[in-house]
């Protein structure tokens, strides 16, 4: 194996997409998908990129996987420059994308996986051994002979996951690997990923997600990304501890339609998200200090709001994101875990 300490390293990585005329968004012909991203992922890490849709996660993964060129900046995978030497990089990596529909429906699970193994030059017998072993680990031992078009989307994604690990990559990119999956399947995949890395401590996984629980549970370190920029990068507990000096409250209020307007301009409020539910308004508040709560409540009360519930909570990565960006990570809550 090549000698490198940093599995991934980027320096000022920037990617601009130029749009055709008919694709222009709000008159803009360019999209800044990645904005001077500088990152280091240690060998052996399970590193998470957490950010909402459109943050630039896939763009970053694709550049690292040699499928896309950066507009400027540099990126190294396994110590190799992805622009200068993509062919060499490919020997060290693999990639799985959530919701992938790769392979051929006519083939069985085992045949599909075998086919992809051939592209990596793995001898058939060795490939079969690994396929059956990995399928068993994701609970699909009895599905080896099932044709792919008969698989449910959850099964299909587990097969894709197996495809990624089958080649025993030094560095594996997982782009939203549990996207849209049911709770149970998502859990199986996470457990599998975690276990594999424990058994292969010299391997590295770079995973993207917009599910904060996934990042929190799974990752050694997390980079929070929004609009192409890395806003913070640390272990989940560190990110959350940083917020602890501040105070996170959840409020449920009635008799008010827009708390944001009512609380506008209060310097003690670090971040605020609201969303309506059953005629009440749910507020996530990040305050500079606990003491600030008094004045917030007073201001709400003056605007005609009645307090229905108040909880002080341990900060989550969602709050970290809220504090950094001023919006929630998942505007429409499709959190599945």
């Amino acid at each position: 194996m090549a000698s490198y300490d940093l599995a991934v390293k980027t320096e000022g990585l920037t990617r601009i997409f130029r749009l055709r005329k008919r694709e222009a968004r709000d008159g803009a012909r360019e999209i800044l998908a990645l904005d001077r991203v500088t990152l280091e992922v240690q060998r052996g890490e399970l590193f998470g990129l957490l950010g909402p849709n459109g943050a630039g996660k896939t763009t970053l993964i694709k550049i690292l996987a040699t499928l896309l060129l950066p507009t400027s900046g540099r990126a190294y995978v396994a110590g190799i420059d992805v622009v200068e030497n993509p062919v060499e990089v490919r020997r060290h990596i693999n990639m799985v994308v959530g919701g992938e529909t790769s392979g051929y429906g006519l083939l069985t699970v085992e045949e599909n996986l075998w086919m992809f193994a051939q592209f990596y030059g793995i001898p058939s017998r060795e490939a079969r051994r690994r396929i059956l072993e990995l399928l068993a680990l994701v609970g699909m031992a009895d599905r080896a002979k099932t044709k792919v078009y008969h698989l449910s989307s959850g099964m299909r994604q587990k097969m894709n996951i197996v495809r990624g690990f089958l080649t025993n990559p030094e560095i594996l990119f997982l782009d939203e690997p549990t996207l849209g999956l049911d709770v149970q399947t998502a859990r199986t995949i996470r457990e599998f990923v975690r276990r594999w890395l424990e058994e292969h401590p010299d391997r590295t996984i770079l995973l993207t997600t917009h599910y904060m629980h996934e990042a929190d549970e799974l990752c050694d370190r997390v980079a929070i990304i929004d609009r192409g920029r890395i806003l913070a990068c640390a272990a989940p507990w560190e990110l959350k501890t940083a917020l602890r000096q501040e105070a996170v409250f959840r409020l449920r209020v009635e008799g008010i339609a827009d708390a944001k307007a009512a609380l506008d301009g209060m310097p003690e409020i670090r971040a605020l998200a609201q969303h309506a539910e059953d005629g009440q308004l749910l507020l996530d508040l990040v305050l500079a200090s606990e003491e600030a709560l008094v004045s917030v409540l007073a201001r709400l009360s003056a605007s005609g709001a009645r307090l229905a519930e108040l909880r002080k909570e341990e900060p989550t990565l969602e709050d970290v994101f809220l504090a950094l960006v001023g919006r929630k990570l998942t505007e429409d809550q499709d959190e599945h875990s």
Partner: protein
Amino acid sequence: MSTVKHFLRTVVGRAYPRLVGVWREKSWLIFDVLFPLLQVSAYVYIYRAIGAPPEFSGFAILGGATIAYWMNVLWSMASQLYWEKETGNLQLYLLAPTSRMAILLGMALGGLTATTVRAAGVILVGALLFRVPLQVSHGALFLGVFLLTLVALYGLGMLLSSVFLLWGREAWHLSNLFMEPVYLLAGFYFPVRALGLGLALAASVIPITLGLDALRQLLYPQLMENFRVLPVEAEMGVLAGLAVLFVFLARGGLRFFENLARREGRLTLRGQ
């Protein structure tokens, strides 16, 4: 592991779904044998009605069998990479540390082998049904010309495959556009020389044209004496040249696309 072994594994891996497909989707087989046969019978009956010698029916059957290959190249080779792009396979192919030509070659070999089953069906059923004389005088030469034609034809398929990738959505329309005129120009059902030497030579960019002509010369030497485009040896030379040219261009085309896609972000259609 050696590069050659890796190359071969890739070829076999990519050919596999094509080969398996023949047996798992028997409906294709019926469609691909029946459709050319219907066309063939139309010509056979016309030839009979005008009192043409039975060899002419042989022309039509041979042409019908070749059409199976042409349809395979057009519908399963040319638009294949475009389709692979949509399913997400293409980016996984490009991600793999293997030769892109091996992938293309696997696709071609798989399709070629699978189609041979269909083409054989057309010839067998056609020869039995219409009791057409099919006697090959120079067996080895006949086989050689046949294989050379296929190599050139699938070389063209590989080239079209990377070209269609660039054209994207228009690929399907292109396939349609190519289909009918080629039926005429390549002389599937009659000796192409009937179109005049100039047009026959122009139509020779499609490897089927000269391939069929050479095969007919070997099958019916007396009859073809006045109808041939070029002598068999010359036709073989042209076919070999075309094969090399197409494969070379296909390689360039795919490389061009890959670079373009990496620059412009066109490897997949959706945000994925």
